[in-house]
């Protein structure tokens, strides 16, 4: 079970360490500054922290010594030209394969996908996706411009990559990004005109996660509900068996059991607060047919906590989870959510949580 965690917040990156069974705040990096994403590279131990400085733009830093020191590395740059976009935010980073030389994938607002083969010293735009005609239909969801927030690299074949875009649906490549095809058949977007609601190109998947032991099973917490794919993101079945609410942002899947997944529900979507002021986590153990509402250790009233899409983390055991909320609360479990421990801190709004 992991004994190190990370919370990227509006006011810094908190490094958590488990001491005698309890989570402690070991260190705060980038104090006072918004941390939009954190990636811990399992291949070389490097830690990447994406900042979103209010005045000075999006930045990326890397640590090669477990967060003791940080070095600023390059950020992606969009091509010049009429109406050329500028980088607004770095919102996802993933290893592009099992070896460091395979490089990194990185997703941004606006909806650009970039690759680096030199640990962030330089970034190349994936032009086949950027130039895909369907991209003209993408639009912003929760941000002014489209966003690539989910990158799932198939552990069986790193040339096979699935990404999710708000709002631009789910995309797949089988050749390392040279060609892209839309997936997401079966997703539903009530926020669109009737003729467009089933169009996979305009869907708003809030987060997509892949089961490491069964990479053809993916889960999406979508703006309109919860969806599960068992064919590698081509087609999706809507999951309706969970109580409380099917709206939310975060989802985690068990690393070995593709039928088990966790969500943090909220009142959709005009309010985005917990139902009845009660913070709960929902879990399914049967692929979404039924669910369990997990409440033990979570506050039962007067809650306004929303959990953002990257703010629910799970470790390799599948038993330990950690999440942080918009009101700066954090909770951890070591038994799959049957009981939760409220961490005794008053943090800034939490954007991203990791156990790594």
């Amino acid at each position, binding site marked *: 079970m992991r004994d190190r965690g990370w919370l990227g917040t509006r006011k810094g990156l908190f490094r958590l360490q488990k001491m005698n069974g309890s989570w402690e705040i070991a260190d705060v990096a980038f104090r006072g500054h918004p941390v939009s994403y954190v990636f811990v590279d399992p291949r070389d131990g490097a830690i990447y922290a994406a900042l979103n400085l209010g*005045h000075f733009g999006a*930045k990326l830093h890397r640590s090669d010594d477990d967060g003791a020191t940080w070095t600023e590395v390059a950020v992606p*740059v969009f091509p010049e030209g009429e109406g050329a976009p*500028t*980088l607004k935010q770095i919102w996802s980073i993933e290893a592009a394969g099992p070896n460091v030389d395979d490089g990194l994938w990185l997703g941004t607002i606006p909806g650009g996908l970039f690759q680096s083969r030199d640990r962030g010293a330089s970034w190349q735009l994936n032009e086949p996706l950027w130039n895909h005609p369907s991209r003209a239909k993408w639009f912003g969801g929760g941000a002014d411009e489209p966003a690539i927030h989910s990158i799932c690299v198939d552990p069986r074949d790193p040339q096979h990559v699935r990404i999710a875009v708000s709002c631009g649906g789910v995309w797949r490549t089988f050749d390392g990004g040279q060609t892209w095809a839309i997936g997401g058949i079966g997703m539903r977007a009530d926020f669109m005109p009737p003729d467009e609601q089933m169009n996979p190109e305009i869907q708003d998947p809030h987060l997509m996660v892949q089961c490491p032991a069964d990479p053809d099973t993916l889960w999406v917490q979508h703006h309109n509900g919860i969806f599960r794919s068992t064919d590698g993101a081509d087609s999706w079945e809507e999951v309706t068996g969970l109580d409380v609410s099917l709206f939310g942002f975060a989802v985690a899947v068990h690393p070995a059991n593709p039928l088990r997944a966790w969500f943090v529900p909220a009142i959709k979507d005009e309010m985005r607060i917990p139902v009845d002021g009660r913070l709960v986590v929902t879990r399914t153990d049967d692929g979404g047919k039924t669910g369990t509402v997990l409440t033990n250790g979570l506050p039962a009233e007067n809650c306004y906590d929303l959990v953002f899409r990257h703010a629910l983390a799970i470790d390799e055991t599948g038993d330990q989870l950690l999440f942080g909320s918009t009101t700066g609360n954090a909770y951890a479990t070591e038994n799959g959510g049957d009981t939760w421990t409220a961490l005794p801190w008053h943090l800034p709004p939490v954007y991203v949580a990791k156990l790594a």
Partner: protein
Amino acid sequence: MAFVHFTPHLRMHVDVRDGEFAGATVAEVLNSAFEVMPTARGYVLDDHGAVRKHVVIFLNSTLIQDRTRQSDAVAPGDRIDVLQALSGG
């Protein structure tokens, strides 16, 4: 030569220093500054060389006119202030 002052806020992130830099436009003066402080460029200007949305540049206490190319003419002895805009805070 023009005198360039950078907001202390910027020093939280990059090693910048105020000083005299050469150039006939704001862009040229800033380029001279960024030659010796290359990391600062991406904090003041965006991907395409425009002044970042939440950064403001004053030339002799007046906001520059050309945020895209910083073509405002600079005379010897002028003062340029590179500051954070309140809109970004």
